């Protein structure tokens, strides 16, 4: 079995995102990480390989110079066998569909049977790419999975629904799974594996190598601007004796905040 993982190198959870000065893009301060939901996908892929054997390969879109080090430390050092990085100038401003087309072609080229993705990236919160990949490949997709098992060519997955209800689904491979928190507990990389991560194969592919043209990934949706939320108004301090303060507070809650 060949198992794929789609991972995005993104801003760390404690990084501050902010629109650029011209509002045309967003920036972040702090370090880059492989997205936390993607780490559940990595762990599930490695566990599936440990149980059933096979090869694991991680796919990402981005500049190799920006993403390779994080892929080595957070993915290859955890037991994934190989990295495929899709890098092409035409992908610099790609929308979700463009990224999905590139990843779907790379997945197809590797002959993968099963793909794990995080349920979403934590920077743009688009939650589109995994479903688009499954659609482009003509595969089944199960989203927000909290338990997963493979038996031969069939799978069973438990997914989280609203209100804490769990839905159990089953089907045949190939399938794309998106990982929800709770699917597993991602392991720490072990230092000896970190030291060997550099020796694992990494391949860089451009669009031509995947049989795609720049037009095929041209964005169908373009971003007009990024903007910050309005600053929260400062709080009010009510002064006076208790009766005055309570009366004024009730008035403000009723007339200004309109919550009473």
């Amino acid at each position, binding site marked *: 079995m060949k198992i794929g993982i789609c991972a995005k190198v993104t801003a760390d959870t404690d990084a501050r995102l902010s629109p650029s000065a011209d509002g045309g893009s967003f920036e972040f301060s702090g*370090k880059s990480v492989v997205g936390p939901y993607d780490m559940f996908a990595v762990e599930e892929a490695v566990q599936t390989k440990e149980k059933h054997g096979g090869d694991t390969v991680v796919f990402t879109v981005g500049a190799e110079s920006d993403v390779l*080090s994080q892929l*080595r*430390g*957070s993915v290859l*050092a955890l037991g994934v066998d190989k990295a495929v990085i899709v890098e092409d100038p035409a992908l610099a401003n790609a929308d979700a569909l463009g990224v999905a087309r590139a990843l779907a072609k790379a997945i197809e080229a590797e002959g993968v049977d099963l793909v794990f993705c995080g349920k979403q990236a934590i920077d743009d919160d688009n939650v589109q790419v995994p479903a688009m990949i499954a659609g482009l490949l003509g595969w089944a997709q199960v989203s927000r999975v909290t338990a997963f098992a493979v038996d031969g060519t069939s799978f069973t997955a438990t997914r989280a629904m609203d209100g804490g209800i769990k839905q159990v689904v089953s089907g045949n491979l190939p399938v794309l799974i998106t990982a929800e928190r709770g699917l597993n507990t991602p392991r*720490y*990389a*072990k*230092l*000896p*594996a*970190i*030291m060997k*991560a*550099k020796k694992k194969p990494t391949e860089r592919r451009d669009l031509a190598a995947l049989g795609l043209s720049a037009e095929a990934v041209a964005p169908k949706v373009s971003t007009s601007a990024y903007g910050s939320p309005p600053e929260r108004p400062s709080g009010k301090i009510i002064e006076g004796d208790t009766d005055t303060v309570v009366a004024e507070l009730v008035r403000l809650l009723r007339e200004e905040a309109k919550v009473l």
Partner: protein
Amino acid sequence: MTTGDLFNPTEEHRMLRDLITEFTQQEVEPQASTHDASGTMNVELMRKVGELGLLGITIPTEAGGAGMDSVGAVIVHHELSKSDPGFCLAYLAHSMLFVNNFYHCSSEQQRARYLPRVLSGEWIAGMGMTEPGAGTDVLGMSTTAVRSGDHYVLNGTKTYITNACEGHCFLVYAKVEGRVSAFIVDRDCPGFTTSQHIEKLGMRGSTMAELIFDDCRVPVANLLGEEGQGITHMMRNLELERLTLAAMSVGIADRCVDIMIRHAQERRAFGEPLVNFGQIQRYLADGYAMTEAAKSLVYHVAHHCGPDARNRIGTDAAKLFAAPVGKTVADYAMQVMGGSGYCREYPVERLWRDAKLLEIGGGTIEAHQKNLSKDLTRSRPLA
């Protein structure tokens, strides 16, 4: 491939730092205050550190270690000490004072017996050098070892020994016919006991006790190297000990800088955040500058220190400079935090207590001054 970064010279160093940072935040920080309060070492956590492959960080991969250099060792001590210097001290006693020292002076048979146990953390280890009557004056030690058939018989006491309470084996220095020699003493060697836990001010996430040898019979197979080679083993390892202790001071200072910068922005007085007050700005700015200076010195020395690159001057200078920085910056952080800094609810008072040990343990400030003066004059003799 090197990156040109003093603190993360290779990609592996950067990945190591990311690993330790995450592990420290997830596993080390949550247990730190509990073990500080109880004065106990977290053995289970040490075994988790073993699972990550960190207990043999400086020994070659062929021997089961990680094959990293002194910079790697400094990164681990720096990052762990941001959360729990007490636990880090137990890690240092195990992985630097025992594992690193042992590896460089042991035979293949000795490595086969001890390394699998200490690298996994199944066995906790430590080192015995200081005695009730010989601290800085280490060569004045009075513990003796006398050959008796296929054993050595050890008599004497080692004191202030980190990991003594939990330890399964210890690297111990004793004099054979007046010459310092090194032995491995197992917990079950006849005639070997440890004292009660010695209570201490800080570094309470590690324990300390005496190692007592009363006609203690140690197999000849446990002699490290040859009789009389103990000084060479000791001096080589003291350099890495000083360097990693200095890295702990940097970790304490780094954390305290973070804490006081945050507090000075959040806390308000007279209608303004504390950071607007010049007296507070002095603590922030001076604390940051001295922390960065200590960090740069410690990492610079780490680039020039290893089993094949002796650097007594550098490591003495690094610890001489960094230890007071750790203590001073922890004091600054407490001053900026005021009453809350003095309370056990926040980590600063623990770091403040921990920081003091680094001006004493692994060489007092005065010992570093003595060594440096001696080495510097020796290297620059008058014509």
